[in-house]
């Protein structure tokens, strides 16, 4: 009997894991299937560019089927509940589907409703719909106070709001409305964002570009009528345009299955990426509770140790210790505006030391945006 391998979610982590598994497993030894609620694969980093009218529709979303190897099955359906005792996932349409090995890759989900007034009062760029709406708002913007902030931790791609504010500054300057605009960046921490070395690099750039940095601002609510953002620390910020990152949660299926913590994140072993306390279940990408960035690049690296462990189990051998261990690798390009960018690389034991921003990394990010579709989900590179 071939082993049944089920992958929940066909985003960065899920599609890459499924393709790598199918490539490495001996023919006939296993059946690999992906379950995805939409059947679409979305390149979320593109939302950043979409908000400024720079994105190419072709690299925002593609049919997931076209990114999976022919020998990977695709079920377009929503997982409702995971029963780890019976080793069954209950799908909305298809009903129960059994597994021998399960990979959960259901991502993170935006929870606008948990911040009063956020939906009515603020814009965003963390979903396709929000980014499109923001693009129209920015086109019509004639000056005033813009607030960019984070309405809940953790959130995916920690550099993205900083990249957004730097690209916004450039965009408004080029449109000739910068001198009529005050830009404020609200950070929940006492620095620009989570990574200290990169924050130290960004702070003087903010100063040079006249972006006000307000630290320790944990957003509590938005008042759409008065156009104010209110913080837990007791501050009030007036705005003409507020661009906020909504709080994130794990997928409903995780909570409904009793597997997650308060935020719906899966308790995950930091090296093996096994979900703690259950057998033959792995977590990859945004859905884990790991203390590292929720990013596509994290999911990219996490796929390899999971694949090694599952292939070893199917082949009836011990996994190769080095290949089966995730060391916390993350690598992200970081846009700084004015055609400059840097790169952040780190792991559990090595904090990043980003190089001086330059056009080289900016071009590298654009190259990556194009090359993504050929390499990342397909598991090449």
């Amino acid at each position: 009997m071939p082993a049944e391998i089920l992958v929940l979610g066909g985003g960065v982590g899920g599609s890459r894991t499924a393709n790598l598994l199918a490539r490495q497993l001996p023919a006939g030894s296993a059946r690999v299937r992906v379950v995805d609620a939409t059947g679409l694969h979305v390149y979320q980093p593109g939302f950043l560019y979409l908000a400024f009218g720079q994105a190419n529709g072709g690299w925002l979303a593609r049919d997931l089927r076209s990114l999976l190897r022919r020998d990977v099955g695709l079920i377009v359906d929503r997982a409702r509940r995971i029963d780890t005792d019976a080793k069954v996932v209950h799908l909305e349409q298809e009903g129960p589907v059994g597994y021998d090995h399960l990979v959960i890759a259901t991502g993170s989900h935006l929870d606008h409703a948990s911040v009063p007034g956020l939906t009515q009062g603020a814009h965003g760029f963390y979903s396709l719909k929000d980014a499109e709406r923001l693009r129209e708002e920015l086109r019509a913007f004639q000056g005033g106070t813009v607030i960019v902030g984070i309405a809940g931790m953790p959130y995916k791609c920690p550099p993205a709001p900083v990249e957004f504010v730097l690209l916004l500054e450039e965009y408004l300057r080029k449109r000739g409305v910068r001198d009529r605009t005050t830009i404020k960046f609200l950070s929940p921490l006492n620095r620009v964002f989570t990574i200290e070395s990169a924050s130290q690099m960004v702070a003087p750039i903010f100063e040079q570009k006249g972006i006000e940095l307000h630290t320790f601002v944990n957003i509590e609510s938005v008042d759409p009528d008065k156009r104010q953002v209110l913080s837990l620390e007791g501050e009030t910020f007036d705005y003409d345009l507020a661009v906020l990152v909504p709080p994130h949660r794990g997928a409903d299926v995780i909570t409904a299955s009793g597997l997650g913590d308060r935020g719906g994140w899966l308790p995950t072993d930091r090296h093996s990426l096994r979900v703690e306390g259950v057998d033959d279940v792995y977590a990859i990408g945004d859905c884990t509770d790991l203390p590292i960035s929720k990013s596509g690049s994290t999911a990219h690296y996490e796929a390899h140790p999971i694949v090694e462990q599952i292939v070893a189990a199917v082949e009836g051998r011990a996994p190769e210790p080095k290949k089966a261990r995730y060391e916390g690798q993350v690598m992200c390009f970081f846009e700084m505006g004015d055609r400059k960018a840097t790169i952040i690389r780190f792991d559990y034991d090595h904090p990043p030391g980003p190089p001086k921003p330059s056009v080289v990394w900016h071009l590298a990010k654009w190259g990556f945006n194009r090359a993504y579709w050929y390499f990342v989900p397909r598991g090449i590179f």
Partner: protein
Amino acid sequence: MPTAATKEIDARGSFCPGPLMELIRAIRDADVGDTIAILSKDPGSRTDIPAWVAKAKHEMVEISDEDGYSRYVVKKAR
């Protein structure tokens, strides 16, 4: 004797900004007058936690060094 707290949070497994975010979450859920103790191994907490407490106008009751970690006691003041 360490100061007793209404709620004790063990954030020793989590690193920057984890312990501070745990404290912020607990303050959100607490009642005015409650005290929250947070345990942290992260050296960054030493500056972050008192700085946040001052900014948010709560009260830093006590910082004590224990065996390999620190214990921060904060009172929700408003």
